[in-house]
């Protein structure tokens, strides 16, 4: 028992789980931070709490935006900045539930691709166009080189998710 207490006492102060809004606020109050930064963090946390899937998609997009040349070991190019901007605009035009079933991945030619977790569906996004493929028991749906707009892209996501 003594040994256990000693181990617990040696644990860092922040070892407890941060699970609730109260936990987060307690943590925020425990560190030195300007009121402006606190407000901004608080807004961000509130946004993330209400838009979990969108937040994850945005984090993933940030990660993909930092890929360097040859990231796949086979000469892949980094994701094009305009493609990243396009995906940002898609996310901005979508609802959180739209992202429950989609994962963003990089293509090796600088474009992005989103793949459904539920079925064999995927949408490729370039600078000016997007294409999609979806296979299900009902048959195949395909669209090639469609002019890109965030609205059209989100509509396709909803149709083939």
């Amino acid at each position, binding site marked *: 028992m003594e040994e256990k207490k000693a181990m617990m006492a040696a644990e860092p102060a922040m070892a407890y789980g941060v699970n609730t809004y109260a936990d987060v606020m307690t943590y925020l109050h425990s560190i030195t931070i300007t009121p402006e930064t606190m407000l901004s963090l608080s807004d961000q946390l509130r946004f993330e709490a209400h838009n979990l899937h969108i937040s994850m998609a945005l984090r993933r997009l940030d990660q993909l935006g930092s890929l360097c040349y040859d990231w796949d*070991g086979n000469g892949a190019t980094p994701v094009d900045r305009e493609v990243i901007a396009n995906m940002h605009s898609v996310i901005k035009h979508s609802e959180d539930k739209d992202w429950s079933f989609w*994962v963003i*991945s990089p293509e*090796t*030619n600088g474009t992005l*691709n989103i793949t459904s977790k539920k079925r064999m569906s995927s949408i490729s996004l370039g600078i000016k166009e997007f294409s999609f493929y979806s296979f299900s028991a009902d048959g*195949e749906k395909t669209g090639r080189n469609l002019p890109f707009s965030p609205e059209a892209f989100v509509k396709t996501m909803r149709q083939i998710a």
Partner: protein
Amino acid sequence: MKKEQVSSAEQVARLLNRIWIVEGELQPAAFVLNAGEAYLSVNRPAVASYESDVDDFISKHPAFCVHSSQKLYYRANLSVGDVRNIGCLIGDERLQIDVDVEPRSMYYQSHAGIFTRVDGVTVKADKSIAYPGSKYGVSSEPILMKLRFELLRLSNVELCPTRA
């Protein structure tokens, strides 16, 4: 002349960039061909140089390590026999797709390629396929997309040590 084949009893491994694993799940993007590329690169653990080939590759491409401080990498193991049995039929033309695994030892002794063919014509990314008997050819994209999902389904993801 018949091309050299990897035995159906062998396993091949696709080395995985950590970007292809999201929330612990391997993504189909791990099996995408580059534009114009004719085969998907894999390595053969049964070949003696496999470990040193992987070490060399990972030392040049650190994003294939699970974490910069950890000498571990993910690989997707695929049975060559299972890969050969992939047969997808596409569209109204009911194309028969053949998938094969052939050695490509020019760069690394353990390197091999997963090829996809329609009536003997190799399917390349971003190219339409004009196979014998076809009038206009067909897009390679639906074929390669189905292949991606099939390879994902057959994959057994494993965490392995590297000396790189």
